[in-house]
């Protein structure tokens, strides 16, 4: 059995150009890592991603170091203008300073650095968890559709069509408030968990169909491969074949898709919170901060307030995108050769 598994050559790795290098049997991940290490851009984006993750994880520590927290407001006239443009931070507080590393927000005078860091926690958690939900759903459903075929396939495929045809944003717009009102009385719905849980569920639930379609295609061809046939002839159960033979062999594709889905979900969180249906004040997230910047046209008189979450968002999405490209190139040399 084990011997049958090991030559696993998941379609993607076999394409190493024979003129260049003898096809050595390196493991998928090792090859991938080697390739990533060779690309400066990939390494740089990996570093940025790690740094952003650390920034988010260490949010409580970092904001404590700066002496602020994301929720304490300060509307005293020494901080915020209270006459000409009421609520606009005075210049000393609008921009980075020793007491407020990124200045304070207009209106409530809360510390921007702390909100950015804690907002990162929220945004990234939502993006990562919803990606995980999509990936699990997509892989399992896609693999099941491809492997079992017949009615299972028909049902799952129709479901995929439905999900792909649905105008997501519109549906999510009407769905999120519903879900939030349902979740409010459950443990998931407490405090800042509420918007996070609802966004994770919704983004996760709407992201699986595309992956499922890809996985299904892969599994359709895998199903006829010798090692699956062999496992079948040894009398392995369907579930064991599915989870031990099939799914490990589509992990390459899944990994590529997952790394590309993360930045998509980061943007989606930002979009929904921006529209006011996602994360809501006082819980910070990068999308919520964008929403706050647009509210009352604050960004026109305090562009810095828009720049802080905006630049953070762009850098994060860019880093994840570049990393995603690198992972795809590494795992799928057919694409990378270009």
């Amino acid at each position, binding site marked *: 059995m084990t011997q049958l598994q090991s030559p696993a050559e998941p379609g993607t790795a076999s394409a190493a150009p024979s003129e260049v290098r003898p096809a050595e049997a390196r493991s998928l991940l090792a090859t991938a890592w080697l390739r990533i290490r060779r690309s400066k851009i990939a390494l740089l984006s990996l570093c940025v991603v790690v740094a952003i993750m650390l920034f988010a994880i260490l949010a409580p520590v970092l904001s404590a170091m700066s002496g602020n927290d994301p929720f304490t407001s300060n509307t005293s006239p020494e901080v915020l203008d209270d006459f000409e443009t009421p609520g606009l931070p005075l210049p000393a507080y609008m921009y980075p300073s020793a007491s407020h590393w990124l200045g304070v927000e207009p209106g409530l005078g809360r510390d921007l650095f702390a909100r950015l860091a804690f907002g990162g926690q929220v945004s990234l958690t939502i993006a990562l968890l919803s990606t995980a939900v999509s990936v699990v759903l997509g892989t399992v459903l896609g693999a099941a559709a491809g492997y079992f075929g017949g009615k299972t396939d028909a049902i799952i495929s129709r479901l995929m069509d439905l999900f*792909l045809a649905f105008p997501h944003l519109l549906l999510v717009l009407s769905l999120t408030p519903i879900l939030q009102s*349902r979740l409010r009385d459950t443990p998931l719905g407490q405090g800042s968990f509420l918007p996070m849980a609802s966004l994770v569920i919704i983004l996760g639930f709407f992201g699986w169909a595309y992956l499922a379609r890809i996985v299904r295609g892969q599994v359709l061809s895998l199903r006829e491969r010798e090692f699956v046939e062999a496992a079948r002839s040894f009398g392995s159960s369907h579930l064991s074949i599915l989870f031990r033979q099939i799914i490990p062999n589509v992990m390459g594709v899944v990994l590529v898709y997952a790394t590309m889905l993360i930045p998509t979900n980061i943007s989606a969180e930002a*979009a929904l919170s921006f529209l006011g249906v996602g994360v809501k004040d006082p819980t910070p997230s990068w999308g919520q901060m*964008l929403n706050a910047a647009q509210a009352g046209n604050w960004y026109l008189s305090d562009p810095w307030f828009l720049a802080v979450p905006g630049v953070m968002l762009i850098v994060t999405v860019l880093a994840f995108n570049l990393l995603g490209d690198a992972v795809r190139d590494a795992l799928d040399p057919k694409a990378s050769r*270009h």
Partner: protein
Amino acid sequence: MIRFILRRTGSLFLLLVAVSFITFTLFQFGPADPASAACGQECTPERVQEARVALGMDQPFLVQYVDYMRGLISSRMIGAPGAESLCQWPCLGKSFQTNENVSDIIARSLPYTFSMAIGALVLWTLSGVGLGLLAALRKGSPTDKFIVGAASVGVSLPIPVTGLFLLLVFVNQFHLLPFTTNEINSPFGPQGPWAWVLNYLLPWIALAVLFSASYIRVTRTNMIETFGEDFIRTARAKGLAPRTVTFKHGVRAGITPVVTMLGMDIGLLLGGAVLTEQIFSVPGLGFTAVRAAISGDLPVTMAITMLAAFFVIVANVVVDLAYAAIDPRVRLQ
């Protein structure tokens, strides 16, 4: 071919029914109650009940749904007993907010959405395919690297950030462009095509930056792949001019995935670019849908969701037909 179209129409119909039913059902569980929204601060239970009658919400759920769907087949009467009014086919109901025919609201919103979609589409297709092709032809050159880099940044620009940034810089700070006005929704209006272009330029750019970035990537990848195909080598071996090889043989074959993408994106965009319309206050379908969703205006939300799904599904069919036109191999099936 006829069978193909028939089959697709059949599945289109089923999908629409599914989409409408899901939307309708979801709405029943929504936190917003249109009836109690109708009377505000003096909503005694009796008044809410009257409002339910007025909005037709006193009927059982399934009756409401069937009534609604009936309007898609023929005209129907809407309203409280004694005060019914005719809703002409195709009847999408009447707005809970303004009692307007939803079909009128949609008809009013469509030109804005079209204006947004068309300009953005032209902009991003030209720039996306053009730059993608250029990068593919100059593969490995500094030009290629620059384009690929710009595309990577482009896909990473969230619409809210670009949109607000464009407004801030071009409108508010430097007054280079006018504030978007809702008076203009077609190039044939009294203000002329130029005013139309200026009015929609920023939303177009915001959309096009994002979209063209992914078109650049897809075009480039596919063109490089196609340029590596055997038939391109054959074409060169025949002694064809490079231009013929590139366009007649290369682009025609390499463009198919772009056509698919384009079709799907058009479908999506016709359903309303929710974010962009919101940021630039363009009262297209997306903008209207958001307003309706927030205020609990079920008929409007329903109709726009269905219309958006309809566009996506039709776009799918059109893409398939376009495929058949481009690729003779598909015609066989």
